[in-house]
C-alpha cells in the first residue's frame, strides 16, 4: 500500500518537518510506503506528482494551515489532523488512513491511464495549437540532445583536421573522376595519410549532412509522439536535407527543415492515431497504417507542401545572416550573448543555443563560437571574483568560487546560478553585458569553431583564430567582473531594497 501525506504548520520550520519524520517512521514500522510533501518556509518540498497520486491509496493531511493545491488529491481517501497530533500519534494516523483506504472502493487507474490523465490535465490549459507548439519545443530539445553526439563526431573531426592541416586542406580530397574510377589508384589511396584524411573528411561531412538533420527530425518527432514518429521523421529529415530520390531533389531545408519535418511527422502520426478501426485491426493500424501513411504524408509535405517554404526560409535566413556584416553582426552577437547569460541555462538561454547550433549545422559556426564565449563568462567571472574579491561574497559563495570558475571554463553556466539567485539585480546585468560584448566581437570577426557542441574554453584548438577569440573572451570576463564589482560597491544591498520600494 502506498500512502501520501502533507504536513504544514504556521511557521513552516518546526512542526512541518518533525511531523513528516514521524509519519515516515511510523509508516516504515508498519510496512507501508509513504511520500510526505512538506509545505513549509522553504516552499513545497518533495512535491507529490500526479503519478504519485494515481498510485496512492490514501492521503494524510497533518496541517494547521490550508493545503496548497489541494485539488490535486480530490480523488483520494483522506484523514485530517493537526500537525502536532501527527507528531504524537503518527502510528494512529497511519492506521486510520489504511483503514480508510481499505473501506474505499476507489480503483487505482493503470499506468497508461495515469500518463494520459496527467497529460490531459496539462492539455486542458492550452488550446490545440499551443499544445502542439509546446510539444514541438519539447521535441526540438529532445532532437537537439540526440544530434549532439553526431555534432561531436563531425565537428571534432573537422576541427582536428583544421588543427593539423590548416584551413586549406581541400586539395586533399579533390580527386578527379579518372582517379575515382581507377581501382588500383583508389586501393593505394585508401592506405595513405592523404586517403585516410579524405575519408575522415567525408565521414565528418556525412555526420553533418544529411545524417544530422535526419536524426534531428526523427528525434523531434520521437519526443512528440514516441516511437512511431521515428521512421517518418528520418525520411522527412532526409527530404528536408535535399536527399535525392532518383533525379528528384529539393532545396536543402537544413536545420529548420529538420525541425519542421519532425513536427510534420509527429502531426501525421497524431492524426492517423485518431482513425478508429475495429479492434482486430488495431495491430495492423500500429504496424502498417500509421507508419506507412505518416511516412508518405511527411515526404509529400516536405517535397511539395509547406515544408518547401521552410526550406526556402532556412536558405534565406542563412543567406541573410551571411550577408550581415559589421554593425549588424555586432548587434546580433550582442543580443545572443545577453540571451545566453540572462537566465543561465533557462529557456531564453536555450533559445539562443538552439539558434546558434542551427546556424552551426548550416556551416555558420561563428554563431556557436560567439555563444560559447558568452556562456563561459558567468562561471568564469563569478568564480574569479569570489576568489579575487572575497569580501563581496558570503562564505558559501567564496568556497564555491574555484569550482564555479572551472565549470565556467568547461562551458557550464549552471555553476553561476546560485550567485545569480541570491543577488539577481547586481549579478545578472553585467554577466549579460560581458557575454554580449564578447559574443558581438567574436561574431563580427566571424571566428569559426570546429565543433557545434560542448563549447568551452578548452575548445581553443578547434577555434579558427584562437588568440583573437581568447582576447575577446577575456574582454567579456573583464567587463563582467568590473561591472559587477562596481554594482556591488556603489549599489549596496540596503539601498537596493529601498530603491525598489521594498519595505523591510
Amino acid at each position, binding site marked *: 500500500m502506498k500512502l501520501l501525506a502533507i504536513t504544514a504548520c504556521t511557521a*513552516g*520550520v518546526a512542526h512541518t*518537518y*518533525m511531523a513528516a519524520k*514521524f509519519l515516515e*517512521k511510523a509508516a516504515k514500522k508498519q510496512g507501508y510506503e509513504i511520500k510526505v510533501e512538506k509545505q513549509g518556509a522553504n516552499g513545497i518540498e518533495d512535491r507529490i506528482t500526479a503519478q504519485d497520486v494515481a498510485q496512492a491509496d490514501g492521503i494524510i493531511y497533518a496541517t*494547521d494551515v490550508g493545503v496548497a493545491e489541494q485539488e490535486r488529491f480530490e480523488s483520494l481517501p483522506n484523514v485530517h489532523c*493537526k500537525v*502536532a497530533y501527527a507528531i*504524537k500519534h503518527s502510528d494512529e494516523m497511519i492506521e486510520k488512513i489504511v483503514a480508510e483506504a481499505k473501506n474505499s472502493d476507489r480503483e487505482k487507474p493503470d499506468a497508461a491511464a495515469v500518463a494520459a490523465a496527467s497529460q490531459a490535465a496539462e492539455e486542458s490549459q492550452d488550446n490545440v495549437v499551443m499544445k502542439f507548439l509546446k510539444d514541438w519545443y519539447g521535441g526540438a530539445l529532445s532532437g537537439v540532445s540526440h544530434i549532439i553526439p553526431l555534432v561531436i563526431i563531425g565537428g571534432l573531426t573537422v576541427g582536428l583536421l583544421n588543427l593539423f592541416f590548416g584551413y586549406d586542406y581541400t586539395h586533399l580530397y579533390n580527386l578527379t573522376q579518372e582517379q575515382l574510377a581507377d581501382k588500383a589508384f583508389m586501393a593505394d589511396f585508401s592506405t595513405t595519410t592523404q586517403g585516410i584524411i579524405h575519408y575522415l573528411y567525408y565521414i565528418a561531412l556525412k555526420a553533418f549532412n544529411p545524417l544530422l538533420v535526419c536524426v534531428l527530425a526523427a528525434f523531434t518527432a520521437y519526443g512528440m509522439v514516441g516511437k512511431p514518429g521515428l521512421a517518418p521523421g528520418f525520411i522527412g529529415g532526409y527530404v528536408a536535407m535535399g536527399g535525392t530520390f532518383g533525379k528528384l531533389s529539393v532545396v536543402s531545408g537544413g536545420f529548420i527543415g529538420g525541425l519542421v519535418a519532425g513536427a510534420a511527422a509527429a502531426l501525421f502520426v497524431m492524426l492517423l492515431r485518431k482513425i478508429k478501426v475495429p479492434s482486430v485491426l488495431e495491430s495492423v493500424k500500429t504496424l502498417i497504417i500509421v507508419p506507412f501513411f505518416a511516412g508518405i504524408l511527411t515526404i509529400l509535405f516536405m517535397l511539395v507542401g509547406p515544408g518547401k517554404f521552410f526550406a526556402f526560409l532556412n536558405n534565406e535566413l542563412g543567406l541573410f545572416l551571411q550577408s550581415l556584416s559589421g554593425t549588424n553582426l555586432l548587434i546580433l552577437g550582442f543580443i545572443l550573448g545577453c540571451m545566453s547569460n540572462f537566465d543561465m541555462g533557462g529557456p531564453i538561454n536555450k533559445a539562443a543555443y538552439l539558434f546558434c547550433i542551427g546556424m552551426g549545422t548550416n556551416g555558420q559556426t561563428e554563431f556557436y563560437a560567439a555563444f560559447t564565449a558568452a556562456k563561459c563568462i558567468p562561471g568564469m567571472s563569478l568564480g574569479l571574483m569570489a576568489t579575487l574579491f572575497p569580501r563581496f561574497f558570503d562564505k558559501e559563495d567564496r568556497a564555491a568560487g574555484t569550482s564555479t570558475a572551472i565549470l565556467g571554463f568547461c562551458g557550464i553556466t549552471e555553476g553561476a546560478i546560485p550567485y545569480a539567485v541570491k543577488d539577481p539585480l547586481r549579478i545578472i546585468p553585467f554577466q549579460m553585458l560581458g557575454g554580449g560584448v564578447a559574443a558581438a566581437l567574436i561574431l563580427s570577426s566571424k571566428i569559426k569553431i570546429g565543433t557545434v557542441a560542448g563549447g568551452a574554453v578548452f575548445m581553443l584548438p578547434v577555434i579558427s583564430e584562437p588568440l583573437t577569440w581568447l582576447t575577446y573572451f577575456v574582454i567579456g570576463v573583464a567587463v563582467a567582473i568590473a561591472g559587477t564589482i562596481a554594482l556591488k560597491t556603489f549599489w549596496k544591498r540596503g539601498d537596493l531594497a529601498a530603491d525598489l520600494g521594498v519595505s523591510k
Partner: protein
Amino acid sequence: MDLTTLTTAELINLQVEVSSREEVINLLADQLDAAGKLADKAGYLKAVEEREEEGPTALGENLAVPHGKTNAVKEASFAMATLKNDIKWKGIEGDEDVSIVFLLAIPDAEAGSTHIKLLTDLTCLLVDDDVREAMIAATDKQVVLDLLTQA
C-alpha cells in the same frame, strides 16, 4: 551539515532550574537577544507567545519546541536548555512534562535560504530518540555541540 552555525555555546544551557514555561522562554530569549540575533526582543516574545496560544509546542518525549517567526528576528538561530526538574508544558492532551526545550528564532526571510534549511534540519534531528536522549543526559556543552555538528 553543521547546525552549530545557528547557535553558540552561550545559547546552550544544561540542567537549568526553572519553574515555568514563561521562565525558560524568557531566559532563552534574553540569551538570543544578548547574542544579537534579535532586532526587537519584545516583538519576538510576542510572536512566540502567540504561537503558544495557537497550539501545543510540546511534542511528547519530553521535548518542547517553542518558536517565533517574525521580522523582529535578525538572524535565524536557536537557543536550547535541558532542565534539572521537569516543568509542565501545554501539550496535545493536557499538560506534559518537558525536560528539553529548543527556542527557535525564525526571520520572515525568503523561503529556501540556507538558514531556514538548517532550522528544518534541526527539527528533523530532534525526532531521533538517541539524539534527544543524549542531549538530555549531557553535562558538557561540548556533547550537545558535537551532536549538532554531526547532524
